[in-house]
């Protein structure tokens, strides 16, 4: 009952209100907390018993099938059956930028990896090729989830909605269903990737949702680890490095925001150290790269490494903000507005970075093992320029024969 109200609240905020203040969104946070208090802790804790499950069933409409599916498993959980092997993990969002690195790292460390991917015409063959088991399921269809979770010890959740779909369906409704299902099925650990500073920017829908999910996870009582991330180095390749090499225009803002980019391979590595460490259980970790960079600095670095000047188109942040305001005026452009939401942050001097010393110490990681952006981009350009040269030489030769 409560969860449905929250859903409707969330959708309210997306409805064509002409001016949405951040306070109305704050309300959601408040709501979600009360909602959790009202529903999650006691009910979910006793979720193994049938009667309470029925209670869940009665109160949450979209989750009926989910709860029903878990009943036998929950019952089996009570019996001293075959224990789930700690090496069996489920990765949600295994095809994504971070997810695929997580899958790879897990396979290499000897885990049995299962990946939940949406059924699609072109299946994620690369995951299967690495040795992961691919199961079809969709977070937006809760009835597909329970069957995929049988025999899973740890869930690693790196999923987020695609840019073109509404944020709410995957990132909120899907996640809630997943966490409830995980709880009911006795999943022993849930790792959730969130965004750094998500508690400080309720005006950005994605961050707000991530924050609510963090809270929901905490209240659910599952053994969990929340990892907040800043930015991925891999994203910079497509955004800056490739356009510069192709001599196309690079778009940047004049925002003073700094982001501590991090290599997803490093994130995956640290994640698994965190998963295995008992000290980290129930904690909130933030992973940040060694240094925070502004957009302009990244572009300058790319220019230097590529040996050519970028054709930079600078868009003032005010234009971005204006566009966002404009797109919010219409219901059918709300998704667009959500996508532009980060412009709100860009105006501030926010630094997306945290000192990592404590985290390194907690995990027992050496700081010099974490790759820096300079090193990462340098590796990229060295390799790509070499490859281009090879291909060029090859194509010349083949032309010779034409």
């Amino acid at each position: 009952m409560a969860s449905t109200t929250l859903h409707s609240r969330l959708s309210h905020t997306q409805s064509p209100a002409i001016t949405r203040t951040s306070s109305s969104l704050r309300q959601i946070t408040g709501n979600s907390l009360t909602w959790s208090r009202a529903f999650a802790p006691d009910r979910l804790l006793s979720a193994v018993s049938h009667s309470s499950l029925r209670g869940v069933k009665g109160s949450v409409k979209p989750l009926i099938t989910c709860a029903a599916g878990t009943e036998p498993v929950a019952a089996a959980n009570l019996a001293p059956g075959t224990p789930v092997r700690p090496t069996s993990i489920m990765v949600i969002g295994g095809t994504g930028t971070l997810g695929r690195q997580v899958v790879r790292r897990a396979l290499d460390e000897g885990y049995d990896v299962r990946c939940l991917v949406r059924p699609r015409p072109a299946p994620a063959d690369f995951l299967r090729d690495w040795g992961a088991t691919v199961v079809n399921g969709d977070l937006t269809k809760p009835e597909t989830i329970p069957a995929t979770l049988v025999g899973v010890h740890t869930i690693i959740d790196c999923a987020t909605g695609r840019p073109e779909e509404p944020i709410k369906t995957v990132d909120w409704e899907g996640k809630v269903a997943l966490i409830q299902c995980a709880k009911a099925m006795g999943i022993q650990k849930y790792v959730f990737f969130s965004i750094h500073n998500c508690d400080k920017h309720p005006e950005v829908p994605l961050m707000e949702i991530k924050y609510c999910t963090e809270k929901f996870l905490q209240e659910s009582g599952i053994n969990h680890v929340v990892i907040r991330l800043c930015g991925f180095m891999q994203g910079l390749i497509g955004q800056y490095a490739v356009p510069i090499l192709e001599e196309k225009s690079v778009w940047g803002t004049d925002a003073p925001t700094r982001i501590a980019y991090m290599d997803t391979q490093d994130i995956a590595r640290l994640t698994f150290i965190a998963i295995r460490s008992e000290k980290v259980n129930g904690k909130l970790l933030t992973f940040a790269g060694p240094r925070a960079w502004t957009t302009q600095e990244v572009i300058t670095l790319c220019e230097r490494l590529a040996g050519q000047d970028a054709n930079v188109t600078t868009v003032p942040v005010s234009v971005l903000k204006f566009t966002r305001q404009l797109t919010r005026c219409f219901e059918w452009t709300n998704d667009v507005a959500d996508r532009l939401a980060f412009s709100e942050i860009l105006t501030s001097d926010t630094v997306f970075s945290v000192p990592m010393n404590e985290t390194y110490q907690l995990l027992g990681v050496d700081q010099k093992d974490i790759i820096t952006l300079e090193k990462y981009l340098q590796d990229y350009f060295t390799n790509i320029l070499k490859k281009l040269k090879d291909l060029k030489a090859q194509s010349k030769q083949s032309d010779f024969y034409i």
Partner: protein
Amino acid sequence: MTTATAGLTSTTTSGVGGGKLCSHKRIANDFATLNTSVSSSNGFNCWNAATNHPRRRLVFAKASSSSPPPPPEKKQDQSDNDDVIDDDQKPSSVSVMKRLVDANPVGLGRRSRQIFDEAWRKFSELGQISRTTRTNDESSLLIQEGGPMCEFATPGAQNTTVLVVGATSRVGRIVVRKLMLRGYSVKALVRNADQEVVDMLPTSVKIVIGDVGDPATLRVAVEGCSKIIYCATARSSITVDLNRVDYQGVYNLSKAFQDYNNQLAQLRAGKSSKSKLLLAKFKSADSLKGWEVRKGTYFQDEVAAKYDGGMDAKFEFSESGDAVFSGYVFTRGGYVELSTKLSLPLGSTLDRYEGLIISIGGNGRSYVVILESGPSADTSQSNLYFARISTKVGFCRVRVPFSSFRPVNPADPPLDPFLVHTFTIRFEPRRQRPSEAAVGGSQDLRSFQMILEYIKALPTGQETDFILVSCTGSGVEVSRRESVLRAKKAGEDSLRRSGLGYTIIRPGPLMEEPGGQRALIFDQGNRISQGISCADVADICVKALHDSTARNKSFDVCYEYVAEPGKELYELVAHLPDKANNYLTPALSALEKNT
């Protein structure tokens, strides 16, 4: 990166005529994609064009500053765009052509929409923090999946095919995954390919159905493989099973692999660099020619010799078809020896080999093998090198690596196999141990008999060819331990004698845990007491493939432990794994070869 290369190459190669051709092509393209572009233009795009003034202004401002237009979103449109760039530099006749094409309203509309889309995409990206762009997936795929940027990339993996035997075992499963991640081609030998097995293996693993107990199926399995990882183990401790998998399996497979190597070599009209070199084979009376029996004594003490019973030895071809070297030495400090000058086949020298293998039968005495090296024309300058070998009662094959030969005169340089010209096997009554099978006290350690079958040289190489996962026996039940270990030992021995470069890993009791968590101990000599995770064993297998220090080594491995007082024998050589960690090389270089 495919898009980038396409752009670059077409700019460099298309000439004037090429430009014209491309323009025509573009018209065709325009019409071909007309349908799709119309159908795909949804409300979103219309709205873009209609409402958003600031963005439109941006695009126009950019165009007036005469920079190339932003890249279109779809990949197949890439060529179009490049043509436009090219055309700008073409002579006027072509540009007239271009203008004509541009005048086509459909093309104009479509292109303006593309430009707009792209601009919008880039624009909206600015409003995001860490979303990666989907359109560049292909380029990032190329870098990340097995490219040089990937932390798992292994040089040489692309052209290596590995046969994994026991691919569904606890270790084998992880080995297969690790190999796939590193870009190896993998063949998996399974007994039957039912759905469960197929599901367990990655999709591009080539599955070969066969059984290690059946040499015929193995011939197919080893085809095209350059390395073998053997992690199969018997499912029961019934002697037959043990024998079939742990001993005969290894033997059959190493034999099949050698046969395959030889077959390949014959195609190249040469000898396989992995095959053994026959130095002597005793199968007829003629083969005994050139062998010379000598007697001698270490002491030049006439007085002592007077009271001795003397000594005698002969080397003859028996009626049963064996070459028998037998005799007795009662003289104190005396010895008898059998010696020959080595005549190597033309074109082969012993420096391409790393040891000898002698097939010998007899009553279990130990012997000294002596190699004489130096310029063959002048034997007075020769240096002598010796190695002690012990034999068992009955037939056995003894592997004597060149590295185990010590100079008789300690001042001499270490043995150089290239210069070896004389082979001698010597019997001396000193330091003989009574053999186990002795009946009563009747054996006299001063007499001996041995049957020589053949002497071969073992080839050398850089890398290991065959990795065998054996066991230390510490996790096995006591009642079964002996029989398991015996089978494993027999398998290990048959591998050592095969001439393939081998790595034998004897892990402690296996645990199903993620790997890379704890420090490992590499040791030789059955001292380890801890278990180890399957993933770590798999990691060692994969790392050993291209590690020259792993060749011809057998070692025990387990998790770190605190040794009992008085037994602290290990030193910390490598620490927890990090990104480019290669703990194997330092760990293994401390260990002895050929054990």
